[in-house]
């Protein structure tokens, strides 16, 4: 039966009558075969959202169903690649349509001609269940791709190809399931992007995602398999923070989703990541990164899909046993895409025009994070770090508020810190991490017994300063007694010397936990020593004039990341300087 377009309203088209299409089915729209997805069906009409610009579409053009939901193709070739929101490789689109993206370009998601050096890991007669690895190939010099039996498929190996070079669609293993049907396994399979990939069980998060950023690792850590939100107005450094995390965090694989953001930013990511040599492997960052770029001027429906495409790719690598981190920049643009489509469907709006299902969509998304045991018994994780762009920098708006409910880490970016160029502009009073107690054992056994005590002391000084600042703002700091002036000085060292971190400085851009701990110890040692000196009646102005506080502010640049002995030098210097009084 021919289904013909009846109505067109922006990215939303309607078809009349019983179309035989099913909900969430992928369709091709019109003579240009634009990709679309069925988003509503009732007895009168069927609604389709189109992932490309609908200018020039005529009513009466045909809509063809594919019988399948919108799927991502999963196989080797995802890494080092850059896709649009529905997993079309942008480089291949460029080859076809030039510097500007034209409509109706059909390209396969993954390179179908490239040959991979495949090693088969099963034998005839083996019984394979879902999630079991049957072949591996080096996808990039640092990541081995593991082909896994797709979920809901199992059986006995009937045929195995010898090791050698294969393309993604070549059959390498044939399985016979318990009903006697044959299944051909190639190097790739498809998975519907809106369905979470099944796992054997969820595990309790126990290790942090080490990022090398002091304020995150020390004050507000996120667990591997955890969720974090970075809300902040424009210019507060959301994107910058996400770039830093993507570059330095200790995940195996990074999926970077540029969702409704700037085109120049994506070209920057491309350029920076290919020039940045990963210290762990000595290879460019791009070897373990996949980018999804659906910039703000690309079609809005594809922006809505980009988040799901990204998380599906991440879950796929998780199932191979990798730790994956997703940077979603920005989830607010995704929520706005939902609002835009919802408006076109004339649905009843809830807060600020957002649809009533905004919270459930957000929670569905963040719940796809986690540390899991996959069906094949591998342990892997997906960590989601979502940027939120609150309208008018107002954290009470619906997207920020609902994100707060479903994430366990909240890194609130602060405009006044950003104005003073204090980066990362994460506010230490309004941010929080719920993972601290889950991770305390890890810090104790992997960093040091006193790590959390130091952290507690540091936050205590910051809190005391926060209280004192209310007085200082009214009457100035001169009036305070010396012990309170010391708190203000130490807090300054913590703020400028510890929390503020220079992303463009060679030593400071990434700082290992051991140095973070050492810096905290030195700061606290100075604080304690000065307290002792003050008790003898020496005024703090004389101590400040020694320049010790300013010296500690510069220590982040002066202590090399690989020099563990610096701590004692600083202790001695502090002792010697204070002795002169």
């Amino acid at each position, binding site marked *: 039966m021919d289904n013909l377009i*009846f*109505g*067109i*309203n*922006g990215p939303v088209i*309607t078809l*009349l009558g019983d179309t035989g299409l099913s909900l969430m089915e992928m369709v091709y729209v019109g003579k240009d075969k634009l990709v679309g997805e069925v988003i509503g069906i009732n007895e009168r009409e069927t609604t389709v959202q189109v992932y490309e610009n609908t*200018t*020039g*579409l005529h*009513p009466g053009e045909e809509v063809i169903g594919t019988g399948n939901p919108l799927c991502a193709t999963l196989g080797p070739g995802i890494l080092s690649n*850059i896709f649009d929101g529905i997993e079309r490789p*942008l480089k291949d*689109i*460029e080859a076809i*349509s*030039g*510097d*500007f*993206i*034209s*409509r109706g370009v059909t390209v396969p998601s993954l390179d179908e001609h490239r040959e991979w050096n495949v090693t088969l890991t099963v034998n005839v007669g083996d019984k394979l269940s879902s999630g079991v690895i049957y072949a591996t190939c080096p996808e990039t010099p640092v990541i081995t791709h593991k082909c896994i039996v797709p979920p809901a498929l199992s059986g006995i190996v009937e045929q195995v190809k010898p090791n050698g070079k294969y393309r993604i669609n070549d059959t390498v293993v044939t399985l016979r399931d318990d009903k006697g049907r044959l299944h051909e396994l190639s190097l790739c399979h498809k998975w519907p992007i809106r369905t979470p990939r099944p796992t054997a069980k969820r595990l309790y998060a126990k290790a942090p995602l080490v990022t090398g950023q002091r304020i995150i690792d020390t004050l507000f850590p996120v667990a591997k398999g955890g969720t974090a939100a970075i809300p902040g107005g*424009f210019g507060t450094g959301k994107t910058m923070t996400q770039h830093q995390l993507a570059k330095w965090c200790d995940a195996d694989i990074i999926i970077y989703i*540029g969702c*409704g953001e*700037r*085109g*120049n*930013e*994506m*070209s*920057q990511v*491309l*350029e920076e990541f290919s020039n940045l040599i990963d210290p762990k492997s000595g290879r460019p960052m791009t070897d373990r990164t996949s980018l999804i*770029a659906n*910039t*703000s*001027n690309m079609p*809005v429906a594809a922006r809505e899909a980009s988040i799901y495409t990204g998380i599906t790719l991440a879950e796929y690598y998780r199932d191979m046993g990798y730790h994956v981190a997703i940077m979603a920049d920005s989830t607010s643009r995704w929520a706005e*895409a939902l609002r*835009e489509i919802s*408006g076109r469907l*004339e649905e009843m*709006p809830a807060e600020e025009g957002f649809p009533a299902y905004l919270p459930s969509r957000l929670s569905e998304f963040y719940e796809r994070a986690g540390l899991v045991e996959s069906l094949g018994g591998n342990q892997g994780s997906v960590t989601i770090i979502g940027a939120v*762009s609150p*309208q*008018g*920098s*107002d954290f009470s708006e619906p997207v920020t508020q609902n994100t707060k409910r479903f994430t366990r880490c909240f890194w609130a970016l602060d405009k006044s810190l950003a*104005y*003073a*160029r*204090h980066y990362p502009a994460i506010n230490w009073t309004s941010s929080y991490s719920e993972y601290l107690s889950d991770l305390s054992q890890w810090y104790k056994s992997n960093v040091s017994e006193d790590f959390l005590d130091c952290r507690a002391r540091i936050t205590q000084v910051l809190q005391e300063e926060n209280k004192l600042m209310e007085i200082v*703002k*009214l009457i*100035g700091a001169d009036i305070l007694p010396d012990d309170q002036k010391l708190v203000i000085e130490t807090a300054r060292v913590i703020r400028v010397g510890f929390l503020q971190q220079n992303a463009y400085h060679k030593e400071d851009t990434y700082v290992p936990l051991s140095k973070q701990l050492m810096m905290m110890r030195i700061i606290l040692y100075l604080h304690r020593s000065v307290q002792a000196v003050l008790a003898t009646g020496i005024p703090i102005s004389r101590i400040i004039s020694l*320049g010790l506080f*300013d010296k500690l502010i*510069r220590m982040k*640049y002066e202590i090399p990341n690989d020099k563990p002995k610096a701590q004692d030098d600083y202790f001695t210097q502090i002792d010697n300087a204070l002795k002169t009084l």
Partner: protein
Amino acid sequence: MILSMIIEYMGVKEINGSIIVLDGVKDLSFEETVVIHLDNGQERSGRVVQIEGERAVIQVFEGVKGISLTNTRTRLLGHPVEMPLSTELLGRILDGAGRPNDGLGDIFPEKRRDINGTPINPVSRVYPRNFISTGISSIDCLMTLIRGQKLPIFSGSGMRHNELAAQIVRQARIADDSDTDFAIVFAAMGVKNDVADYFRRSFEDSGVLNRVVMFLNLSNDPIIERILTPRCALTAAEYLAFDRGMQILVIMTDMTSYAEALREFSASKGEIPGRKGYPGYLYSDLASIYERAGMIKSSRGSVTQIPILTMPNDDITHPVPDLTGYITEGQIVLDRTLDSGGIYPPVSPLPSLSRLMKDGIGDGFTRADHSAVANQLFACYARVQEARSLASVIGEEELSPNDKKLIEFGRLFDNKFINQGYLENRTIDQTLDLGWELLSVLPREELDRIDDKMLEGHYNPDNQ
């Protein structure tokens, strides 16, 4: 001879705000252009914005005044709204819909393009990193403009944003390139006739008038036409930049009027409003304009945008500046207090920002100390604000010696660094040296963003 059947649809079914509804329309396409003939001989244009079977909702650019249910004949043109393109555009003045209105006749087009454009493929972009010297200290040093950037000016009514834009046009030089193929595209949306005239005269004074394409939709021009103006202007800009290899600076003023036109249209179409009555797709719509800046691999041309918008009630959290700030690569924020203090340009350093600056300054672009000086000036000026608010409570006399020095630094910074003449063109070296001169007012310990080696070379407290 080609026989084509021209079908005209008589009358309309519904009129509402800026839209008309036609029924029984056959063979129409989404966003197609229509021409509406009125019985009194008037002609209007519009485009199809929604289709339901044979019912077409049409946006009328010139407004619906004078249209009745029976007095129109509407014809479909079979293509979306297009812009005629040719290098002849340079030096011409066009109306808000891209039709010449300077009395010099039609433009003979080399090509026609859909004014909506198509998105630049992110992998085809060249990451911008060429410094544009504007000769204005506050901009060059603190929020450097980069070729291919979109850097809006956030202003308020009554502030001197037009002078600032005109000064940028006059003084802008691309550091590493000759200026041979430099041109300006100017789009006015809902601005006063005086403002458009001011820009025309200032282009004339700086001798660039024959390299300017002006699109004028003034405040008394049709409101819905305003939705087309930036798109026509950017289609022309993209053509000149990417087809003709020119360096194009696009000035668009006032984006707030544009957004209001969009709101008016959205309301008449009965759409569900988002914040402050603006349509929910305002972000995507603004992005479809601002994202048309940049550089691409296959051309040596570039499109740099300086949109100007007035913040209603000087409120930076208003949806238009707010969403703009999320799309553009920074912003230049003008400040009412500086302006009323007689400081020109009244650029407020702290909320202003250039996102592309970090990769376009420093050794090989401007000067090795640029980033350190800029960072230190920002950090010190932030402390000046704290000292000033403390001084307003306890009085300047009671401040600590360091705070007093900060106040002094703040005063010099406002009056010598930010403040500069309308005709004064400072080189980047002059600007950075001035920055050091001001920093030398402060005690050395205050300068915590600069490493010792750089301080040795430049910090000089005796040179006052």
